[in-house]
């Protein structure tokens, strides 16, 4: 057994994370920055971090992921990274020619205390930033928060640097999709557009990290929010932020900066989650829900009723990022499933824990919740009190295998399966897909374990 080293005895650990369910801020920053059109993410630190971030994103998306690095040496680590960053900006614009460079810091540059805005000022004063080109940055030390924090801060930085109000209100609605897959971003936008709403979505990694094979390597693929759109976001009618942890900071900042009112919702996973999203869109834009969307909703409701008998009472363990975990938990509970072990790797605050507790209030048994926790604890809980299904990223497959429990892959990273980049789990259709995955996992297991006598053909 691969994880035979997991013991059942649970001890309080203060100094140690074992088998993390989170990773560091810059990778979230890099992912968010890739959702800006023509943007080259830049890691201000030494070159190892960014090599890891690029590799991890490449493994998850199976797409080329580019980013640049300040390539700190010992000198820079002692004297500060200003010279490196100024030189980097110069080199990047002259060689790779992106529209914008998104700088994120690393633990290293944060600890030595580099002041990025001041370095930007120097680069501009030295004429290193050509006309019509842009810089923005986010501070992303990993000893605070997690990859989700890095994503949230970078999304907020898009507002801080670019959003402006031209005094008039346009009809557009801003959508902040949260730390979700490119496919989810596309689906979130599709739903809004199907309601006839003009949107500005940021970040938007669809067509960037799920692009087509063209026979050419393109450093800057087609998709992504443009700087122009980001500017205009300050004049939109309103903002819908999906996922409080990943998207609220940007929405709040936009409200404060440009007086664009915002609504903070959970991720649109499942029936209730999507209802809330659609309803908010409807009210904010003053439109009605089109038949097509009602049809999708009806189909989801229909499938839920057709299949609920295989789902109810099923005990589930969920591990992942806070916004995802909360939305998934709500969906499962609405299907009468029982999330009994819940872990987020990322810290998310007391208010979040309260929401999670509220979401499982109806579950008729004790529910373990740990925010933040790690996969080791998650596994210990499962060992002590087995479940029918696990939902988690690729690393959860070790637990699934050792304990012989079906797994539905969800979250980041997924290194070993196709699908997440192309098929959304958000919206009504996404709800259907998610149900399909839950059912496949549970029913495949049921078929496998059925003896000859009880094996059923029709389900």
């Amino acid at each position, binding site marked *: 057994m691969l994880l035979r080293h997991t013991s059942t005895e649970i001890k309080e650990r203060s100094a140690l*994370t074992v088998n993390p369910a989170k990773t560091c801020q810059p990778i979230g920053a890099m992912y968010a920055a890739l959702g800006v059109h023509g943007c080259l993410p830049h890691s201000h630190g030494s*070159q190892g*971090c960014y090599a890891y971030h690029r590799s991890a994103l490449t493994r998850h998306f199976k797409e080329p992921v580019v980013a640049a690095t300040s*390539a*700190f040496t010992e000198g820079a680590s002692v004297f500060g990274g200003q010279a490196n960053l100024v030189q980097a900006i110069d*080199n990047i614009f002259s060689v*790779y020619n992106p529209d914008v460079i998104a700088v994120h810091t690393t633990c290293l540059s944060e600890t030595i205390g580099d002041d990025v805005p001041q370095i930007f000022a120097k680069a501009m004063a030295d004429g290193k930033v050509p006309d019509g080109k842009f810089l923005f940055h986010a501070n992303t030390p990993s000893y605070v928060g997690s990859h989700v924090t890095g994503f949230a801060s970078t999304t907020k930085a898009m507002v801080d640097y670019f959003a402006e109000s031209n005094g008039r209100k346009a009809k557009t609605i801003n959508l902040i999709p949260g730390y979700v897959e490119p496919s989810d971003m596309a689906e979130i936008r599709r739903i809004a557009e199907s309601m006839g709403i003009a949107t500005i979505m940021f970040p938007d990694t669809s067509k960037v990290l799920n692009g087509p*094979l063209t026979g*050419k390597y393109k450093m800057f693929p087609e998709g992504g929010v443009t700087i122009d759109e980001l500017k205009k976001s300050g004049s939109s009618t309103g903002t819908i932020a999906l996922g409080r942890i990943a998207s609220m900071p940007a929405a709040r900042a936009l409200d404060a900066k440009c007086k664009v009112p915002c609504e903070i919702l959970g991720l649109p996973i499942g029936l209730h989650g999507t209802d809330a999203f659609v309803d908010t869109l409807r009210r904010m834009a003053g439109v009605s829900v089109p038949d097509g969307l009602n049809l999708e909703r009806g189909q989801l409701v229909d499938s839920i009723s057709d299949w609920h008998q295989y789902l109810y009472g099923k005990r589930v363990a969920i591990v992942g990022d806070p916004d995802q975990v909360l939305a998934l938990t709500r969906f499962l509970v609405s299907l009468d499933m029982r999330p009994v072990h819940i872990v987020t790797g990322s810290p998310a605050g007391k208010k979040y824990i309260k929401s999670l507790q509220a979401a499982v209030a109806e579950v008729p048994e004790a529910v373990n919740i740990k925010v933040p926790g790690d996969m080791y604890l998650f596994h210990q809980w499962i060992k002590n009190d087995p479940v029918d299904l696990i939902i988690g990223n690729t690393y959860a497959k070790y637990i699934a295998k050792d304990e012989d429990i079906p797994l539905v892959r969800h979250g980041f990273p997924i290194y070993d399966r196709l699908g997440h980049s192309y098929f959304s789990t958000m919206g009504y259709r996404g709800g259907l897909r998610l149900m399909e995955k839950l059912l496949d996992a549970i029913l495949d297991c049921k078929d496998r374990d059925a003896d000859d006598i009880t094996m059923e053909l029709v389900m």
Partner: protein
Amino acid sequence: MSSIPILEARQAQIHQKGTQPFEMDCGKHSLAGSVSQRACVFCGSRVVLYPIADALHLIHGPIGCAAYTWDIRGALSSGPELHRMSFSTDLREKDVIFGGEKKLAAALGELIDQYRPKAAFVYATCIVGIIGDDVAAVCRKVEQEKGIPVLPVHSEGFKGTKKDGYKAACDALFKLVGTGSTADIAPVSINILGEFNIGGEAWIIKKYYEQMGVQVVSIMTGDGRVDQVARSHGAALNVVQCSGALTFLAEMMKAKYGTPYMRVSYFGIDDMAKALYDVAEHFNAAPEVMARTRAIVRREVETIMPELNRIKCDLYGKRAAIYVGGAFKAFSLIKALRYLGMTVVLVGSQTGNESDYATLQDMCDDGTVILDDANPLELSKYIIEKKADLFIGGVKERPIAFKMGIGFCDHNHERKIPLAGFEGMLHFAREVHNSVTSPVWQFAPARAAVLESKKEVAR
């Protein structure tokens, strides 16, 4: 795409054989702002030490460095799996301010008590170097308390390149060497150095040597065990695999214990045979070893030949591009590809030194592009210009190859099948063949035209 600007300072790291006098400006730190494919010191140490399966590997730093190196290499173990867990001190802000030594000591104590490993490696990451934790002192203290070797690995990422990480790992290993009993070690005995058992390669190599009548005292570090390392000074010869990662250790062992060493490569028929013959030659006092070696080589080559010959027919004249970590691996790859009838049109490495590039220059045909520390734009430019049919590289290169619609073979840690040894050569040939001749490339727009024109020519 046809012309990309190349950084002036990079000109000296790109060379086309036959054009100008050759002098590669290598071994330099990557330029700030470059999209290098290189990694850090820590990465180097981690890949070298990671396969030691009964040791504890604790990463002292913020979470990311640990998360990204959690079980990403398929270094197989025949016994313990402790190395596949991820242990991190997950430094938080207050640790960065007040120092992480206490946390480190607590984490080590806890882990050693729980897992009773044979030794512990403690990796220092960038930030630890900056905040100035005395990792060595903590290790010494815990070592005394717990009575097992606790070895600091000075792998702060910014302190150099991946190569310096190899060195740091060798320093740590060297402290273990000489601490075990050398009883039962035959005069005809070796250590296999620099073989990490990716896909079970070390087992293949070990089998050959054992069949020759050579005792394998230790493998460093594939399927490695602390006890083996501790007694490795008793072996008569160190056989160091190409990557050069363990050359530092071989040097140190030579100086202290007088153990001679030789460099070999297990890749490709010629190099593999040479690796066995050279060892047999070394032990020529025991002539039966050479006799057995001849028999083994004959047997193995005869086994793979029929299929290899079939594959060669299909691959004849196809063009390959190589971009790998160490230059030594490139040498073997060039030979192996030539053996398959292919032409190498581009070859680059992340860490080659001057003499490596001189060797490459000698080996390559006129017109071959030689690159040091390349970026994706350069790679894709030359791949298109040179009409490559195959790209051999690592995780970050794979999607680049696929975007351009050409075959790919992973010769880095993501390979799943053994490519070393005689049978490895057959696997390699099959993989190259399957990818290069795959019908899926007809779907790639630009490639379709190229493939078509090649067919024309063939007709």
